[in-house]
């Protein structure tokens, strides 16, 4: 099956989208950008292809009436289990690297014991993220592993009277190496293991199990060939692609938003370090744009910093802010100052919810200024990027749009974070169409490995 891949190398996360020849989305993948864009690119792509196989499997299951009823959702459970297996694999690799690094640094026996104890408990706890009903949170390996290592490390260090800083140093030294390698897991083997874990959760006859296994094998064995890959985002220059296959993120976001919502005329994208206000025409072609410069206050990283300051998870910010009864005024011109202001407000006894409510309005005020500079907000208005996942941000934006421009149809897709990658994938498909197809496919395959 011929596929077209778009990769968006953002400052915080790297996303990949796989399209089939008809332009339908086959799969999506995301990972943290880490310090190694090449690895991030490969992992996001692998994730997207895994997602594509899972989706193909789901379609196959839906095509078999005898399976549909009883095995509904199984492909997704299978995926979680697959990801869990990958996670465990990485965890083992991390433990091994930590042990080697600790030994090399001449760590005392009690440090080695503490390290072992931490890792003994980590697997159980971090794997909870892959449970069927897990609370939504980041499932990037680095985030899961470091949060749990910090927590357990402190407890174990206290009990064993080992210096926590020593444990922390070992982790810091090891995580980058582990994160910068692409895990060598066999698709076939890992899928089999995942299926073994998943099957008991479903009430299936022996025949049905056999039939399902056949479908899984077929999904794993299916040849998915990449015809063209197009890259975009901050790390685009790092991609081993021909210049022809690197597109600006502005164009990719414009086109991606147009693909998600064909009526789109204005796009706001808020990513890790960028805010982009983009105007597009009826074909999704960008006609004008504005970007933040010199300062990334009000972007995703700003929210990440604020979450750290308040000692809560990034995913919790929005829900807390939605509990606001009033909005405290917070400046949005400097991330670090906003942090200080926040502590100041808390000390004055203001509610955390109200402060966060004000903060979400503050970042949207910044976006509004950029939007007006790009030519205003026209119907329909599509909000994309990681920050669009935050319901409080969407709400604050909606209010400001109404106040300043009156009624506008605001589109937010649950897959908004993939908008840039989707646009890139559409460019890949366009590049692969027509007479030049074969020649491009050859160069792209050669260039993108």
């Amino acid at each position, binding site marked *: 099956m011929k596929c077209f891949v778009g990769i968006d190398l953002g400052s915080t996360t790297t996303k990949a989208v796989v399209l089939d020849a008809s332009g339908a989305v086959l799969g999506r993948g995301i990972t943290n950008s880490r310090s190694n864009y090449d690895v991030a690119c490969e992992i996001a792509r692998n994730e997207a292809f895994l997602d594509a196989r899972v989706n193909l499997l789901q379609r196959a299951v839906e095509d078999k009436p005898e399976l549909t009823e009883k095995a509904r959702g199984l492909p997704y459970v299978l995926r979680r289990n697959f990801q869990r297996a990958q996670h465990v694999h990485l965890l083992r690799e991390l433990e091994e690297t930590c042990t080697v690094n600790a030994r090399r640094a001449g760590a005392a026996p009690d440090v080695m014991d503490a390290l072992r104890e931490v890792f003994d408990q980590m697997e159980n706890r971090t794997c909870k993220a892959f449970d069927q009903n897990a609370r939504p949170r980041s499932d990037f390996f680095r985030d899961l592993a470091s949060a749990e290592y910090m927590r357990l490390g402190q407890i174990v260090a206290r009990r064993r009277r080992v210096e926590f800083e020593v444990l922390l140093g070992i982790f810091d030294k090891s995580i980058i190496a582990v994160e910068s390698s692409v895990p060598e897991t066999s698709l076939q083997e890992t899928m089999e293991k995942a299926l073994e874990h998943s099957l008991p959760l479903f009430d299936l006859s022996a025949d049905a199990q056999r039939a399902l296994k056949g479908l899984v094998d077929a999904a794993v064995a299916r040849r998915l060939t990449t015809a063209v890959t197009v890259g975009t985002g901050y790390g685009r220059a790092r991609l081993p692609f021909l210049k022809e296959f690197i597109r600006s*993120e502005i164009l990719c976001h414009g086109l991606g938003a147009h693909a998600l919502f064909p009526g789109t005329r204005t796009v706001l994208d808020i990513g890790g370090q960028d805010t982009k206000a983009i105007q597009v025409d009826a074909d999704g072609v960008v006609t004008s*744009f504005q970007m933040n410069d*010199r300062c990334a206050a009000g972007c995703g990283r700003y929210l990440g910093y604020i979450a750290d300051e308040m000692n809560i998870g990034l995913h919790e910010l929005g829900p807390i802010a939605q509990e606001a009864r009033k909005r405290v005024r917070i400046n949005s011109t400097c991330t670090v100052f906003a942090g200080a202001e926040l502590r100041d407000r808390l000390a004055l006894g203001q509610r955390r919810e109200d402060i966060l409510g004000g903060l979400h309005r503050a970042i949207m005020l910044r976006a509004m200024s950029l939007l007006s500079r790009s030519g205003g907000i026209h119907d329909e208005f599509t909000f994309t990027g990681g920050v669009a996942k935050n319901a409080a941000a969407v709400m604050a934006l909606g209010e400001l749009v109404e106040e300043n421009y009156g009624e506008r149809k605001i589109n937010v897709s649950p897959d908004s974070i993939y908008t840039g990658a989707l646009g890139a994938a559409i460019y890949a498909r366009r590049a692969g169409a027509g007479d030049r197809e074969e020649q491009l496919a050859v160069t792209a395959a050669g260039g993108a490995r």
Partner: protein
Amino acid sequence: MLQQKEMIAAHFRKLGEARERGQKVVYTFVPGNLTELMLAFDALPLHPEINALQSGMRKLSGEYVAEAERAGHSEDVCTYVKCDVGMLLKGNVGPDGTKLPEPDLLLLSYTGCFTFMKWFELLRQHYDCPVAMLHVPYQADGEATPDMLEYVVKQLRTEVIPKLERVTGRKYDEDRVREALVRSARAEDDLVRVLETAKHRPSPIDAYFGGVYYIGPMFTAFRGTEEAEAYYAQLRAEVEERLARGQGPITPEGLLDEERFRLVVEGPPNWTHFREFWKMFYDERAVVVASTYTKVGGVYDRGFRHDPARPLESLAEYCLGCYTNLSLPTRVEMIADYVRDYAADGFLINSIKSCNSFSAGQLVMLREIEDLTGVKGSFIETDLVDPRYFSASNVKTRLESYFQMLEQKRAAREEVPV
């Protein structure tokens, strides 16, 4: 380019020796400069903003700006000013390493930039030398009226000329001014011809990055000299030869042979990363076919010429008509004309972070030019000589996005059946 560099270097040498030769030194600015008048008094002009941009190109400006900030100048002050003040505080060694002479006169011949006045106030405090100020009315309604002209000419007679006479000890000799103006007008003809070759496709010149070198002598100490006349005659011959051969412009990495984008640019270039900035254009095969920056020292391609028959009047007209003295609507009209006359694919505004008087209103200009021409513009922000305000990856992302946008629009246009 080499000859131009040699001329500028020779001028700095002359400035270094001015004291020994008994020549008087006049500090003055590029917009509305009265070079022919100063030369008629055998005075040597020195342009603080040229020193600042030279310092920027030679990577010295960061240190000078920091020095000025240590002396109490705010982060928001024009960085030309801070660069100049910093250089002064560090011993007034010019960009080429020779110590610059102190001014005998501060000649402020253009007041459209408010900062210029403040700048010379600072210099007067420091040097305690005479100041001649020529108040040049802003063309708020889009034209220089006869009253304005008379007002400026009167100031030339009663303020500028008497002070030049007093400082240099020479009598005003109008014939010398006329002689210089003859040469000016000839060189101006040649410069205009050079700039207008860019209407051809492919353009044999880059009218912004390359243009900076073409305007150098005309905008600084050479207008009205024999050297300048010869320089422009030679430049014209060279460029016409390139035009006849159908060649593209020369870049620091050689000939640009395949013109992909034709652009009009508003605003000065960034000097601290001049080469890097230029590369972002020629790597994409983008050629600037017209720019407004190459008009800050005179808008010759719209018809104005220095006129020996009316020496003071034409100098006054010149001061009133330089690009920075034009109103926003006039600037919009001029850029829109460039977009049309030079068949540009797009236009770019490089807004200067620390220039309050010139950057104000540029977003409005962008929208109006888009409306007038139907061509979409792009907007970036950098600075003149403060290296901290040039964010290469940011500028590059915008430019790349813009070029890809232009390409996409072009592709969409070509698909439409005729």
